[in-house]
């Protein structure tokens, strides 16, 4: 087991590497306001982060990552483009496995702005690939933007698409929705009864009979959703052919060039993904320009769907294949949408990633033995 001093020395080496690559070193407070993180990530963050409180500031969290404070800092004062690197502790509750550290160092690199997203994606990935190259890790890549584009291209209502997009990060829920919208899962009995009742008596009569109006969710809110249910019931199911295309796409696990070719085939019937595929192709070219052998690089279409829900484009991770027990040594991706949420209307393209130096150190030593 490496000492904290050894891990910090390793972290400093990685931090210096990113500084030499042109990134400005930045810091972030350890205590972060809980409401921002909660609003962003939802209740799940409570299971992962340490929450504390005082009377003056209310709930605070020990930072679970640097992304949010770095984005906030950039949205207030950053130039374009801007490259940042940071190095410091993050804190994660470990309720399931006490052997996993609840405090560890992250070294990160984030790139904001710039003209060309494909070049920016490639720049970030290539830096991580270079600094990790002595470890012989397996790199996994994916693209959440492709999935979002595929959903956007389905022949169905904007509401159904929004519901599917919202659950891209919850694969089981996504599957259940797709089965329902595709007519593969039956309409629940209670829903059928409700729809029949609305048709017989009208929504207003149902609301009158339902009970006194209490709480912030108003009668108008309920009426609006009843209306949505009626409209949705009148919609034809998403065609089996389209569901199949989406399933086919979600199951892709191939090398990047093969995955691209496979998805070009899919795009013949689902043309909405073509722009996202052009971006993928441009990214692969940019990666080659950075000296990455994309013929050997894996692409998994569903990669990144079970992580925290802010990546919305390119995603990547580096894994030690000899140590499947370890979490990824490094991971990252593009999070344009997060900058829009935290930038109060302003958005900046952003891509970045983090490395865990204690894992780099452990694997370096293992390799040396």
């Amino acid at each position: 087991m490496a000492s904290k001093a050894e891990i910090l020395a390793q972290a400093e080496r990685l931090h210096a590497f990113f500084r030499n690559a042109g990134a400005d070193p930045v810091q972030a407070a350890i205590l972060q306001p809980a409401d921002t993180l909660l609003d962003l990530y939802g209740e799940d963050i409570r299971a992962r982060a340490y929450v504390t409180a005082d009377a003056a500031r209310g709930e605070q969290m020990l930072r679970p990552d640097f992304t949010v404070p770095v984005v906030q800092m950039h949205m207030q004062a950053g130039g374009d483009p801007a490259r940042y690197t940071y190095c410091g502790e993050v804190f994660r509750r470990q309720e399931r496995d006490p052997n996993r550290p609840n405090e560890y160092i992250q070294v990160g690199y984030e790139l904001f702005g710039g003209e060309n997203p494909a070049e920016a994606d490639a720049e970030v990935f290539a830096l991580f690939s270079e600094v990790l190259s002595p470890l012989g890790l397996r790199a996994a890549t994916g693209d959440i933007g492709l999935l979002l584009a595929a959903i956007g291209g389905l022949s169905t209502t904007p509401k159904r698409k929004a519901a599917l997009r919202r659950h891209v990060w919850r694969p089981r829920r996504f599957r259940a929705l797709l089965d329902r919208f595709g007519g593969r899962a039956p309409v629940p009995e209670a829903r059928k009864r409700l729809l029949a009742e609305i048709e017989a008596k009208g929504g207003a009569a149902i609301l009158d009979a339902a009970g006194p109006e209490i709480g912030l969710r108003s009668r108008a809110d309920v009426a609006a959703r009843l209306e949505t249910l009626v409209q949705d019931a009148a919609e034809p199911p998403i065609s089996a052919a389209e569901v199949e295309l989406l399933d086919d796409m979600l199951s892709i696990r191939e090398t990047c060039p093969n995955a691209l070719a496979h998805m070009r085939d899919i795009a013949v019937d689902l043309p909405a993904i073509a722009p996202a595929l052009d971006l993928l192709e441009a990214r692969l070219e940019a990666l080659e320009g950075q000296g990455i052998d994309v013929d050997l690089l894996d692409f998994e279409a569903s990669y990144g769907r079970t992580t925290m829900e802010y990546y919305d484009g390119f995603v990547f991770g580096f894994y030690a294949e000899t140590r499947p027990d370890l979490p990824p040594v490094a991971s990252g991706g593009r999070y344009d949408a997060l900058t829009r949420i935290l930038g109060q209307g302003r958005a900046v393209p952003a891509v970045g990633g983090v490395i865990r130096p204690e894992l780099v150190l452990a694997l370096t030593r293992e390799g040396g033995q």
Partner: protein
Amino acid sequence: MTLKLGVPSKGRLMDKTFDWFAGHGVNIRRTGSEREYSGAVEGIAGVELVLLSAGEIPRELAAGRIHLGVTGSDLVQERIADWETRVVALEPMGFGYADLVIAVPRCWADVDTLDDLDAAAAAFRAAHGHRLRIATKYHRLVREFLREAGVADYQLVDSQGATEGTVKNLTAEAIADITSTGETLRANHLKILSDGLIHRSQATLFKARAANWDGAAHDSFRALAARLGLDA
């Protein structure tokens, strides 16, 4: 060492616990004055009765400071992270029944399932600018249940009592609380989601994995288990 048996120190839960043990041929009773928290187990050597607040029994079990404890399964699952690795549920005791459920205002004619709750939460957040609030004191159980079900756009707000009133008081939009008959929910114009049963709780005899199970404690446990008819 002495086998420590933790039981609830007051109220109906204590009485029913004593009745259950008596019904299984083991007399346990309080000793000393009415107000003194001490007790005794008759007929089995090396067993010490520890009277505790039912809410503290999970913590004492998890830490292994008592060998056995009687408390609600809801409290154990709520308060002990990864509870199955820390305690063993030896025997459900058939009293102290309570269901932990998700309930929403009855006026939500559009909401019957978790699926509906999720869709309503998304629309609510878009319309009202904040997540749909669910009042509860069972944070862990509710969060895990909703994560499992893939419900998003909600937040939990803490409510340690009178939870059914939070909706009317506009501090929450829905609740997750224990109910036995549903009477209080109905009186507060709330209804239970048809798939909103999170946990069916009852008083349960638990065994602590982390306690000091030396020879003497183990022998006492064997004797007690035999008398109680537990296959342990």
